[in-house]
């Protein structure tokens, strides 16, 4: 399959009477967009805010972040969730650089589970979202809208907005085009057959909390009881995979810009042959975890014929162990692995970093400790959290995990826990 991602880079975003892209300036008709999003009966009172890099602004109650993308030539946007179920990963997709859609959660009282984004100060550099122009969506649930429906509605609003914004680039000439082309795994040209075949095992959800019916993750399927399966990497890059409603240090944005898939593509045909992507779900019981692990290893070793595999996880401790078990089963079949883990220690002690010790699972990259404290400096404006704005204006303490985009478990970030 061949996917072309046409990027239009934006360095200015303003409210305007009509939504359009004028060179590098994105003009947004906020009233019109608000009206578009208000059509969803599950939501009431929608508010849209703009937050720009360098502003002393803090965005709070962050639920997820989505990258602006729009299919061209009849392709379906976010198939199965926004668009109809159709294959993603081919044709031409429009993308806006420098802009992000931030969805906030206005329903939960448990604000501690939601993240913040700082647009200025030392934390801005730690996250991709401190450097993008952010369109922040705050929407409240209609009376009697249940939790799962509310989150589905909020996410849908973010997806619609993402498409709406990227659509402005339809007439524009892209600043740059990324081409992602990967033939079916077995078809290796003879001159490249010597390259090590590398697969990516992508844990897309964790079953510690069962998914809602409307919580589409893979082509809109809530992946309940999903057994490991294979997708083309372009499908991940083109909207087929979204983050569910619980995201510990993973955003939909990071999945859309998938760093591991991009890294493997960058090396493909040079230092490795990108053998494919296996998607898995972290299981909640031991027998299911074992089954998932050996099925994953089977796909990696026998179907994709991989020599090596990189693995990432989504979620906390149980997914961490689940991923390690999959890696251990791969190693047992002779597939060398590298896994991306989080520093699981809660008190900064090196002994607590890892929750497993499996033979062969010895090559580990870490994305830092999400529990490590960080200072949130005073700001002049808070967006997305009227109820706690006064508290968030002043200097407070948070953790790295509470800073959206500072740690991305799919490997997009540079924060790392160093053992001292």
């Amino acid at each position, binding site marked *: 399959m061949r996917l072309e991602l046409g990027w239009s880079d934006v360095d200015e975003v303003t409210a305007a009477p009509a939504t359009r892209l004028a060179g590098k300036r994105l003009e947004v008709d906020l009233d019109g967009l608000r009206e578009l999003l208000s059509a969803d009966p599950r939501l009431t009172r929608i508010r849209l805010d703009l937050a720009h890099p360098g502003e002393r602004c803090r965005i709070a109650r962050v639920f997820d972040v989505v990258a602006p993308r729009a299919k061209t030539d009849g392709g379906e946007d976010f198939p199965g969730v926004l668009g109809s179920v159709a294959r993603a990963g081919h044709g031409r997709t429009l993308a806006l650089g420098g802009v992000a859609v931030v969805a906030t959660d206005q329903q939960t009282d448990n604000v501690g589970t939601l993240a913040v984004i700082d647009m200025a100060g030392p934390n801005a550099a730690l996250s991709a979202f401190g450097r993008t122009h952010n369109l922040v969506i705050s929407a409240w649930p209609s009376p009697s809208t249940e939790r799962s429906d509310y989150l589905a509605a909020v996410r849908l609003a973010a997806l619609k907005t993402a498409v709406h914004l990227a659509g402005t680039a339809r007439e524009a000439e892209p600043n740059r085009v990324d081409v992602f082309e990967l033939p079916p795994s077995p078809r290796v040209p003879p001159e490249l057959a010597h390259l090590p075949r590398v697969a990516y095992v992508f844990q897309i959800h964790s079953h*510690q909390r069962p998914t809602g019916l409307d919580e589409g993750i893979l082509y809109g399927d809530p992946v309940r009881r999903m057994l490991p399966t294979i997708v083309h990497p372009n499908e991940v890059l083109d909207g087929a995979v979204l983050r569910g409603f619980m995201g510990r240090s993973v955003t939909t944005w990071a999945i859309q810009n998938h760093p591991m898939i991009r890294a493997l593509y960058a090396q493909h045909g040079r230092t490795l042959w990108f053998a494919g992507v296996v998607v898995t779900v972290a299981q*909640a*019981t*031991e*027998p299911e975890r074992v089954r998932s692990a050996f099925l994953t290893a089977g796909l990696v070793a026998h179907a994709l014929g991989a020599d090596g595999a990189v693995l990432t996880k989504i979620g906390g*401790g*149980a997914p961490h*162990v689940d991923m*390690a*078990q999959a890696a251990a089963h791969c190693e047992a079949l002779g597939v060398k692995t590298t896994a991306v883990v989080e520093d699981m220690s809660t008190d900064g002690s090196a002994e607590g970093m890892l*929750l*497993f*010790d*499996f033979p062969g699972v010895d090559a580990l990259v870490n994305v830092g400790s999400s529990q490590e404290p960080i200072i949130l400096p005073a700001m002049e404006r808070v967006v997305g959290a009227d109820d706690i704005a006064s508290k968030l204006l002043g200097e407070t303490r948070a953790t790295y995990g509470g800073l959206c985009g500072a740690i991305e478990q799919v490997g997009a970030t540079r924060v790392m826990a160093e053992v001292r």
Partner: protein
Amino acid sequence: MTPVAVMVGANRIVSAAGIIHPLGSADLSPEDEKALRRRIVEQALQALRTEVAKPTVFGRE
């Protein structure tokens, strides 16, 4: 999470029925659920009686 238990050195480990309901199941009738619970507890008692030299996982049938 039995691998964690093995790693930290717990010696007798019985695999239970899931994180969210280690000694039960929402899918079973109350009688069947209690029977499952009893089986796991009896397995635990059996494990207590068994001499072990290192972390050992006692699986469920």
